[in-house]
């Protein structure tokens, strides 16, 4: 019952959800993220529009886990470098609940609809937790990159200015610093 409703109203629900998400940015940015349709001029708006549609379809009817992973990656990668707390970065997922509840309001007298809605909302909660994992993955990535940058800088200084890396054959290795597991 809910699945059919969510399928019928897919475009409307998605548009409303996206408006709420973009509404978490300042007003001027909201207009730009919403109106500019060129994906190269507006990667944030484009990614959010594209990936929220994937997440929505996954929530209502299920889809391949890889698709969800890719969609969550796309969004988390952006949210991880923007201003705002971790909570703000992932909380937009819950905004979908508000939209869907509004669309179901007239059918909530039906026990079956209520049951399906509870189940749907639990899936939304699960997705939010999953998004948090992705968000953390990219936050850690940022720090791993910072660390690597520092290592690289000191590596080159050491390599070039001192004799310590000179092997017995008198040659200096120009190999990159070893990649760490955290960078993978």
């Amino acid at each position, binding site marked *: 019952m809910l699945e059919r409703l969510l399928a019928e109203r897919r475009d409307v629900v998605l548009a409303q959800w996206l408006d*709420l998400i973009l*509404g*978490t*940015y*300042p007003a*001027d*940015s909201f207009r*730009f*993220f919403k109106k*500019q349709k*060129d*994906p*190269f*001029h*507006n*990667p*944030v708006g484009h990614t959010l529009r594209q990936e929220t549609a994937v997440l929505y379809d996954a929530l209502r009817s299920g889809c391949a886990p890889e698709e969800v992973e890719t969609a969550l990656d796309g969004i988390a*990668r*952006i949210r991880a*470098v*923007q*201003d705002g707390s971790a*909570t*703000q970065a992932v*909380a*937009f997922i*819950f*905004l979908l609940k508000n939209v869907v509840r509004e669309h179901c309001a007239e059918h909530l007298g039906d026990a079956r609809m209520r049951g399906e809605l509870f189940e749907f909302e639990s899936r939304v909660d699960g997705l939010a937790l999953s998004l948090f994992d992705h968000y953390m993955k*990219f936050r850690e*990535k*940022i720090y791993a*990159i*910072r660390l*690597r*940058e*520092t290592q*690289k800088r000191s590596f*080159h200084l050491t390599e*070039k*200015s001192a004799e310590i890396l000179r092997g017995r054959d008198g040659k*200096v290795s*120009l190999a*990159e610093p070893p990649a760490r597991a955290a*960078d993978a």
Partner: protein
Amino acid sequence: MAEAIKKPEELGRVQFQPSRKGWMDPHVDFRRGTWNYAAVAETLRYLDQPNPRKWSPVDDDWKLPEGWEKIILEGLRDRLKHYRSLQIFIDTCVRCGACADKCHFFIGSGDPKNMPVLRAELLRSVYRNDFTTAGKILGKIAGGRKLTVDVLKEWFYYFYQCTECRRCSVFCPYGIDTAEVTMMARELMNLVGLSIEWINTPLSNCYRTGNHLGVQPHGFKDSIDFAVDELEELTGVRVDAPINKKGTEILFVAPSADYFASPHYYTLLGYLLLFHEIGLDYTWSTYASEGGNFGLFHSAEMMKRLNSKIYMEAKRLGVKWILGGECGHMWRVMHQYMDTMNGPADFLEVPRSPVTGTRFDHAASTKMVHITEFTADLIHHNKLKLDPSRNDHWRVTFHDSCNPARAMGWIEEPRHIIRAVCNHFREMPENTIKEQTFCCGSGSGIGTDENMEVRLRGGLPRANAVKFVHENYGVNLLLCICAIDKATLPPLLEYWVPGVEVGGVHEMVGNALILKGENERATDLRGQPYEPEQVEAEETEKTHA
């Protein structure tokens, strides 16, 4: 500064909406990852800069000097008199918004104060308040703001979130150069000792040793000698790389990263092979051992001080003209400021290629030519024997670095070279390249690791276009002709587009160049073994965009 810990009942409350404060509210949250370390006192002293002290942008008290407001306002008055451009840029903007969504920092962050128009307004509002009649009488109503500590902190935050890339200027109907507004704001902040470590330390290094990294003459010679040895191992050919040699035809000046950092180093190898093969009569200099000029990111005075060594060294060595390496901002300095600052270089001759005879008349006054112009001319006249299949392991795309593309107009020269030395070249989407190119997000001295979040968000539009050609055409190498790009694009791509590396155009030239008497190349200049048998016949077909 410790961040406030939320109480349990506060944790459940999520603020979905941004605060409604207007743009005139100057408060800035100095969140970790979004600002650069302050310049250390020692470098300020070394450069005779005011107010050397220990401070941090997250401190409440920035230890500003007595009467700092007056110092800045007087500084602004001086600059308005001195630079007609500043007065015009400040007065002509009608806030049409054409630039608003063109800045990579705004596109990536969604922070309205990253809109070029609004960023400039941070300075313009102070100008209005203190320099215009309407502002003096009506104040806030006329868009004026009093210069306060919070306004100054806001300047520091946002004018170090501008890479002076000038993409916004391309779209401005009045041609306002917002980069120059940023330059002026930074100059004003320098007057009260607000500078950043990543600019000031290279400056003081450069002032002392001639290059940003502080490499001394023997270290410089070691690096070049090492490259010569390595090239002999790779190619079997021993190249000559003269240093401080008097009476040669050409002085060659490259950014110091070329002989000290990776992947720049492979570009250096490319230069050395090219110069050897064409028998160029040239010299390196241990004094003019830096083409880049971080003075551009600090102040006109500092830029002039650092730049002076180029002509001085050309004169001392008695060369005829100057050739420069792959660098970005270096060329804004060389082409647009050097002649005025330290010219005329009437002791030099108009550059003429000794191989093709081409006279570079556009450099008739500066006497300095960029290596991509020089090499493109060699290729145009068919003077190089090239085997582009030696770059077949790379699927390349080209990132137009901001200054070469927008300040110099070098759009076709690098592409002409790439097409001759690489079989697999794909352009990124048209509105992300050439004069509309997106910045790496780390130029103008803000490419620090402490500022990584801002760099990554600012680099999103660039990386997003790279991602497109990576996913659709298998591009695995992003070429560029800028040393800052070569330093800052690798972490950017590691974050946004893993699997794409960064290289220089002359690295590709070095790979493809067939040298007289060379051994069969077993590896490319990175030491990566060639595996030609894996390249399928149909893939070798040219895929030029």
